[in-house]
């Protein structure tokens, strides 16, 4: 399990960067696994399965990249809708360009760093990285393929 200091580090990051209220994580626990932190539902039932050999628990939430914390796409898809800052609503054409590997030149009132990309308030796609006025996708191109975007290919 993450120490209180580690938990505070993770929640402070989410609060400072994205304005996600730390109280929203009271029902979850974080635990460290090598260079990543995972999140799972906090429940007393975990004690009752402690004698089982567990190979995986919950979801990877953060990865340490150099000195920085990087939330995972799947974690942001779950909790990104609670963000009040560093979010950007984009259209399908912009998402397509990002997933093609293009950088979008944007003048955003957001500090450099990770940005939550959303199609609308209900559809959180993942993270972008905003540096020097250029936004680039952090969403795996293998996971979010070009053919998933656009209208013709689906039906």
């Amino acid at each position, binding site marked *: 399990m993450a120490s209180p200091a580690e938990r505070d580090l993770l929640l402070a990051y989410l609060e400072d960067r994205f304005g996600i209220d730390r109280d929203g994580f009271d029902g979850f626990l974080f635990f460290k696994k090598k260079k990543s932190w995972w999140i799972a539902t906090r429940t007393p039932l975990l004690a009752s399965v402690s004698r*089982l050999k*567990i*190979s995986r628990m919950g979801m990877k939430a953060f990865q340490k990249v150099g000195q920085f914390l990087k939330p995972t796409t799947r974690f942001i898809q779950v909790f990104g809708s609670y963000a009040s800052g560093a979010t950007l609503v984009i259209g399908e054409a912009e998402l397509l360009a990002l997933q093609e590997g293009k950088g979008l030149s944007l003048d955003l009132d957001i500090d450099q760093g990770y940005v939550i990309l959303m199609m609308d308030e209900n559809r959180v796609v993942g993270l972008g990285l905003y540096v020097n006025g250029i936004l680039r996708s952090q969403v795996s191109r293998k996971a979010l393929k070009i053919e*998933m975007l656009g209208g013709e290919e*689906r*039906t």
Partner: protein
Amino acid sequence: MSSENRQASLSTHESLPDAFSLYSEFIPDFDSFRESILKPLPTHIRINTLKANPHQVVSSLGRKGVSLRKSLPGNATLYTAENLVSPGNTLEYFIGHIHPQALTSCLASLALNPEPESLVLDLCAAPGGKTSHLAQLMGNTGLIVANELYGNRHIPLGNTLTRMGVLNTVVTAYQAQEFPLKQQFDFILADVPCSGEGRFRKIRDEFTYRETKEKALLPALQRKILLRAYDLLRPGGKMVYATCTYNPGENEEVVSHLLVQREASLFPITFDLPSEPGLFGWRDVPYGKQVEKCLRFYPHLVDSVGFFLAGIGKPC
């Protein structure tokens, strides 16, 4: 062989797998059944309420020209999407708002209906569709132990759970029939390995169904798994035994064996869908009257995968 030629080769009664012809003794309107398994399976999706509001997903897919039709009366999360050829190739799939899952497959988790904050065991969990459905029904509360013996299946299992935003699950890798008796569970899903006959039309483009020695060994394995599942259930707990096969030897006979070996009882399962009750017996093997509470789903009646469900309770 082209898909058209393959369909032609299967379009006579004689070319159906022998086992299916035997089932004409109990499958109602066998001619319609035979026709149904030669038709393509309609795309069916489950909307994931852990990450999405069903109304909004229906709207967003509708804007893309996807036509959705509710598949289970009174349920806002299950839809047939006949003009959606590849649901896995959509943004909604990537963001975990939908999961392609056959209607009858969804019924297993609905029949178990685990309570929030409960302790649940999914004994044969990969690839994770039913596990994530259980998590959805529990609102990501409580704890699910998702067991899957084979390590290579842990990858798709993990991918499904992560994509669907499941946070209340731990994964183990025990043989289901030897799952440690260290803890009793409130709810157990035993969606056991089976001959998969019910999926026949779904997979017919990939390979031709044939009997194998391995399939003959399945009933013995299924009996062991079901007995172990029952022993892992707490008094007053509920479990569901599920297969996607028509074979009574893998269905009622396995349930009947449990009823003889343990003081288990069957509880009725009700869905507003056409189904048939369990068979009292077949080919001179009696299964007992209680198995009438089991449900059989046939593709010509529900336009989905053939499926079998038994709801099993343990007395307090």
